[in-house]
């Protein structure tokens, strides 16, 4: 555990001191500022637009954090052979994977926490300016939605670690992770469509394609389960069962992915 935490700590420090972090934070702050500036244009939908824009800004910043900084925190170790030095210490390959994951996760969480505080201030400010247009808005639901943005990026971080463990180039890791993210965000809609009456009327959708999509939908992460934007924007109640299922799905997905990454990584050779 000591090795994992030490590795997590240096990974966190390496990430948090990366200059790209300032650019990402600045961009997110600009989006929050834009939200304050344009919120007044939306008449009765100010509350909905504010929540939407804030959650989107958090998601966008999270994506940039994971793809521009997170990917490099592990893949560059392998690219630049820093891993030779690290593995010359009594750290097992599995400890390396878990340590790196925790480090990137600390980094993403700390950065998102800072942006979350800014986001809350933005929402609070607009709530203060336009109290009559935030009908149904609920802070707890907003917090839940923000928390699940973090869960989504925890899963994405695990995907990045997984692809870093099986490839030897940060660019390939980036491409694979980005593809998994794009597919994961849209897979639920594809599955719904395939099961809908509209799809049944389409003659070009073969049985084998349906089976393929069915299998892929189990393998790819379904990022839609972490999306609570609609509930937060309209103040709709969220059942504890859905919260539990979404969180459990995320946790199990991360665990399995890291186990697989550890297994593959322990068999890998470093030339």
């Amino acid at each position, binding site marked *: 555990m*000591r*090795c994992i935490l*030490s*590795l997590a*700590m*240096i990974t966190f*420090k*390496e990430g948090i*001191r*990366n200059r790209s972090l300032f650019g990402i934070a600045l961009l997110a702050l600009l989006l929050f500022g834009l939200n304050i500036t344009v919120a007044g244009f939306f008449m009765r939908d100010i509350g909905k637009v504010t929540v939407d824009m804030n959650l989107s800004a958090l998601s966008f910043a999270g994506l940039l954090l994971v793809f521009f900084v997170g990917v490099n925190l592990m893949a560059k170790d392998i690219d*630049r*052979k*820093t891993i*030779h*030095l690290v*593995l*010359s*210490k*009594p*750290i*097992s*390959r599995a400890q390396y994977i878990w340590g790196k994951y925790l480090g990137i996760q600390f980094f993403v969480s700390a950065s998102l926490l800072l942006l979350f505080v800014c986001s809350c201030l933005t929402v609070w400010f607009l709530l203060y300016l336009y109290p009559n247009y935030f009908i149904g808005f609920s802070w707890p639901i907003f917090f839940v939605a923000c928390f699940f943005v973090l869960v989504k990026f925890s899963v994405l971080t695990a995907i990045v670690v997984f692809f870093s463990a099986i490839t030897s180039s940060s660019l390939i890791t980036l491409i694979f992770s980005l593809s998994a993210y794009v597919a994961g965000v849209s897979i639920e809609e594809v599955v719904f469509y395939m099961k809908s009456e509209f799809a049944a009327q389409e003659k070009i959708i073969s049985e084998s394609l349906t089976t393929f999509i069915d299998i892929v939908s189990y393998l790819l992460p379904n990022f839609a389960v972490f999306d609570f934007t609609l509930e937060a924007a309209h103040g709709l109640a969220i059942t504890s069962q859905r919260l539990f299922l979404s969180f459990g799905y995320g946790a199990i997905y991360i665990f399995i992915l890291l186990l697989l990454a550890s297994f593959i990584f*322990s068999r890998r*050779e*470093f*030339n």
Partner: protein
Amino acid sequence: MSEIQIVNVSKTYNPGLFKKKVRAVNDLTLDVIKGEVLGLIGPNGAGKSTTIRMLLGLIRPDFGTVFFRGKPLGETTIQREIGYLPENPYLYDHLTLLELLRFCGQTSGLDPAQIKKRGQELMGKLNLLEDQKRPLRTFSKGMLQRSGICFALLHDPSIVILDEPMSGLDPIGRKMVFDLVMELKQQGKTIFFCSHILSDVERLCDRIGLMAKGRLIKQFSREDFLQNIGKTVFLQTTRLTETQKDVLNSLGTSIRDEAEGHLLAVSGDQYFSTNEYLNKASVQVLGCRSEWMSLEELFMQHVKEQRP
């Protein structure tokens, strides 16, 4: 007693589809004995770094076994006992040297007081004390190399594996590292290192392995290339005739062909008689040397023999 035994180890790299496989190490058998300094030399691509990576468990041999203190290598068995410096170490850009050493100490099981004491000691020896709180990305190549050495030695390992430790160092840095390796040698550490700087290998090593094309083609002890035990004088002369060679041989002098003449190894008690004959035969003495054959000459001779 052998600390590390490499027994009939082979390793082939597969560079990718439709590309010819490269046999990096071919049936290598090598022992590293406790307390010795073993140098591995050889041209680029000889398989030196691959051998080190197999020792560390970074790559697995296709055939053969690597033993550490008589037992086959496990995932972290050797790591507790070794300090490793890779060729051109890439360290974490945004960390300071102090943080890097703290990480090294924590993973090696040292307590904070030990990490601090040992870290300050090593940084002092390698002249890095003033830079310990600077990010590593601001370090020069030589400073990174010295930082890598601190990282390798912090936990006071009993075996030190150094891959090109003098690479990128200025003369002062080289002297520091040289002194440090000598100190480790005096402490009885087992040192295994690869270098292209043959003069350093010559001065530091008790035993030298010469690798070419993945094979260990020759092993030398210090005596093999120094031959300076006893009172022997090495004289460089102009080219000798066969008769002159016979006479000198009868006087107990060893003769070796060189590019511009011959090299004579004359023992102290035969010096005057040999000198008298050289005078009489009008053989010009061009100079004298401190060694029979330099490591560089041995290296070139054996490597040339390996070429088709």
